[in-house]
């Protein structure tokens, strides 16, 4: 039988606020356990939550970025369940009335087609703490630093039909939240967590199959693997005459498999009800206008602009707008370098290769945009050739200073003096009479290829510093 996969994603993005969603405690990652947990985060008797305005601002920003309806009135609700790292015995979330309603994003499929994926809703909620099972000899440690960190949970429609589409959608959301500056996007630290609801159905069937929810996925690669494993598992279950049960399954990256965590029967009844400690959240036009005033350019708009303003190809523009730091870097390099296309080639070429090789993020690049822009400027103004540029870049990467400093220190300035180049050309021609003779007697169609020999000799003599265009011109003149 032909099977069709149906996937919906729930993405928890940790909002980049300075303090927690309902308390003044810091949200910084990596502090000593329980040093960023004050009275409210500890769930002390008598404490009350106060909503962090910045978290609301960020949620609205996301809503506007995906062209969704922002609710004039939304309600915080309590999700009740017991867990040691959930200090109050309930999580403050939003249930019936979320802050962000329906919206959508577009993803580009492998064949270049564009597909629209619906976003059902996005709601604000607080994160739980962490249970630490190691180092406590048969006991569990509780770290409440993370408790109360603001999350925006983004729920998609079941619109994706393959693991690849799910990854493309997740990357799109990742791109948007990092672009608009509401999330640092760090999947390893759990700032961007993806849960996948996966089901299969016979191709052509309208109703959905029973779904499994996959958790514990902390990279896009694992997202793809986990979904593909799960699809195969479900097909196998059904084709063996079994039934898929509704359950939560954990993805184990080491074994590349999913395994059951709890079934529907074991699931909690969360007993949601409106949190009486918080008033309904009301968002007026002025608040939205204020958020819009600081809305950065969105990735799709930037992609279009890179093509129209810089004359970049769709592919180049797509690569360069993949993340906001990369796009910002490129734009700075193009500005300083004086040539957008040259800047694009160099950012996507040498720079990307070096970053990749050393596993460094662009924000941490040892050669910043200004320095790199100056390198591109020197290539653009013919101070050095592209080939020498690579050598200069390697030195800059190694910390040997700016482009100009490296060029000066190593004497890499291109020879553009016609007299000097002519002397080199004459010397090489004089030293190779046979080749000169052969060239002159050759079929004119073969001559452009044969001239390469003389260019190579001259560049070797000049240690690569002779301006290649000038060398070519002079050679053609003297050999004709």
């Amino acid at each position, binding site marked *: 039988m032909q099977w069709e996969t149906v996937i919906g994603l729930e993405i928890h993005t940790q909002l980049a606020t300075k303090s927690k969603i309902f308390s003044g405690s810091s949200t910084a990652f990596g502090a000593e356990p329980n040093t960023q947990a004050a*009275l409210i985060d*500890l*769930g*002390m*008797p*008598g*404490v*009350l*939550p*106060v*909503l962090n305005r910045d978290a609301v601002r960020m949620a609205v920003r996301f809503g506007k970025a995906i062209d969704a309806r922002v609710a004039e009135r939304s309600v915080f609700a*309590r999700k*009740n369940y*017991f867990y*040691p790292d959930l*200090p*109050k*015995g*309930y999580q403050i979330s939003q249930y019936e009335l979320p802050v962000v309603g329906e919206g959508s994003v577009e993803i580009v499929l492998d064949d270049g087609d564009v597909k629209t994926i619906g976003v059902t809703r996005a709601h604000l909620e607080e994160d739980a703490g962490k249970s630490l099972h190691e180092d406590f000899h048969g006991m569990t440690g*509780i770290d409440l630093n993370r408790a109360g960190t603001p999350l925006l949970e983004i729920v998609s429609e079941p619109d994706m039909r393959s693991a690849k589409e799910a990854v493309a959608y997740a990357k799109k959301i990742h791109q948007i939240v990092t672009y608009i500056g509401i999330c640092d996007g760090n999947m390893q630290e759990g700032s961007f967590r993806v849960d996948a609801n996966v089901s299969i159905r016979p191709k052509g069937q309208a109703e959905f199959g029973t779904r499994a929810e996959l958790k514990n996925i902390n990279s896009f690669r694992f997202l793809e693997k986990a979904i593909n494993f799960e699809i195969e598992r479900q097909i196998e279950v059904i084709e063996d005459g079994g039934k898929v049960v509704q359950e939560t399954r954990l993805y184990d990256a080491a074994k590349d498999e999913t395994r059951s965590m709890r079934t529907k029967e074991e699931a909690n*009844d969360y*007993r*949601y*009800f409106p949190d*009486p*400690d*918080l*008033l309904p959240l009301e968002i007026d036009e002025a608040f939205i206008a204020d958020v819009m005033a600081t809305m950065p350019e969105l990735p799709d708009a930037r992609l279009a602009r890179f093509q129209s303003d810089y004359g970049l190809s769709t592919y180049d523009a797509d690569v360069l707008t993949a993340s906001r730091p990369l796009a910002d870097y490129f734009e700075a390099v193009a500005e300083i370098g004086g040539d957008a296309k040259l800047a694009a080639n160099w950012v996507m070429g040498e720079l990307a290769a070096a970053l990749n090789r050393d596993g460094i993020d662009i924000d941490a690049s040892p050669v910043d945009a200004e320095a790199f822009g100056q390198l591109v400027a020197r290539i653009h103004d013919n101070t050095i050739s592209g080939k020498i540029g690579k050598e200069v870049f390697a030195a800059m990467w190694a910390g040997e200073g700016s482009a100009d400093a490296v060029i000066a220190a190593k004497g890499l300035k291109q020879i553009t003096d016609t007299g000097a180049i002519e002397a080199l050309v004459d010397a090489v021609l004089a030293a190779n009479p046979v080749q000169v003779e052969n060239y002159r007697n050759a079929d004119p169609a073969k001559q452009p290829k044969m001239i390469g020999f003389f260019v190579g000799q001259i560049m070797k003599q000049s240690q690569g510093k002779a301006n290649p265009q000038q060398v070519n011109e002079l050679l053609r003149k003297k050999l004709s």
Partner: protein
Amino acid sequence: MHYKTIAELSLALQQREISSAELTRHMLQRIGRFDDRLNAFISVTEERALAQADEADRKIAAGDAGPLTGIPIAHKDIFCTQGVRTSCGSRMLENFISPYDASVVERLQQAGAVMLGKTNMDEFAMGSSNETSYYGPVRNPWDTETVPGGSSGGSAAAVAARLCAAATGTDTGGSIRQPAALSGVTGLKPTYGRCSRWGMVAFASSLDQAGPMTRSAEDAAIMLSAMAGFDERDSTSADRPVDDYVGALGNDIRGLRIGVVKEFMGDGLDAGVATSVQTALSEYERLGATLVEISLPNAGLSVPAYYVVAPAECSSNLARFDGVRYGHRCEDPKDLEDLYKRSRSEGFGAEVQRRIMIGTYALSAGYYDAYYLKAQKVRQLIADDFRRAFEQCDLIAGPTAPDTAFRLGAKADDPVAMYLSDIYTIAVNLAGLPGVSIPAPMSAGMPVGLQLIGNYFDEARLLNAAHRLQLATDWHRQNPGGF
């Protein structure tokens, strides 16, 4: 000196007839001498009280004193007090030393009040007789075989027996007004949101409100002036100015329209209480007020609606008491579930467990609409009833409780009978209105409460009316014998 009101004691302190240290020691001695018979206090904070009294005396000497400077008061043990056990009447918090002060505690301390200790209460404020306290029942000073009412029974008994000049209480369904009525003191539940709930251990968040329990309406005005006000730590606290409650006490009440609730004067009301309330109402007429009969047609739904909303909220509010971070933890839990089950079964008493179960049920999938949502709709109907009533009158009056104090144990095994003790007070919480109980003439030697209900944030008028009655009568000046 313990017969004096706050207003009178304040004058004595200012005029140096007595020092706060002397007054505080006197009250501490009274607690030591009489509290064995009442069990009104869970903790007595002698050292802290004497230090605060000394500080108050320095302020008085420096001419830097307000009406509460040096006045010894007590806090219901539901208010968090830094460095002092805050038990909430429960075994669950027997060893809980609060790391912070409640907003109300902070404000009264800033006003110069001296804290004598923490008063007994029904466990987590769930009860109407003070019999559900893990620390034993409180006894009514008017007859120690009877209950003082609840849940602020310790505060009521302590004020009635003059073991403190005033006390704080909390009122979710009548927990200030009903014990005030049964113990013969003045008890005010302000408008929801008037006093900050920060640091007040939550029972039912949408209903809980702190208020003063005092010897007179004037004292309630003095206490409320310090307790009330916006607090950014409580999102439900009202961001509006605090009225001049003391200044408004002198206003004339001639022409005041008092609505008498038809539904509260009929079946289920004790005849003696009815007579007493009628006498008090006649006195208002004599003072120039007009009585108009009003109707709250949905008032009868208030007890059932309350017993859905309050347990639902409590089932969630009390989830934090899980034995993990503070409070009671069972011995040698064998796993997580065992830790939860035993810690909570051992830490909570029967009434608290009953309400957690009712609330959990009411919020369960499939029952939410039929119970919680419907109860919230009833709440709206009740609020609408009051809104219509206030088109016809300025204040509403009636009995606070259907009966005088009952004997210890009389209703302990009949929760529904116990719940009906609050039949006249609950509607006020559901609507979020302010209400005060003041002593009416005694019935068969036991106190009776007259309840006055005001419109939203109309505490000044409420206290003004209560004060004018107290100026004209001595019902609030009665004292139980033997203390």
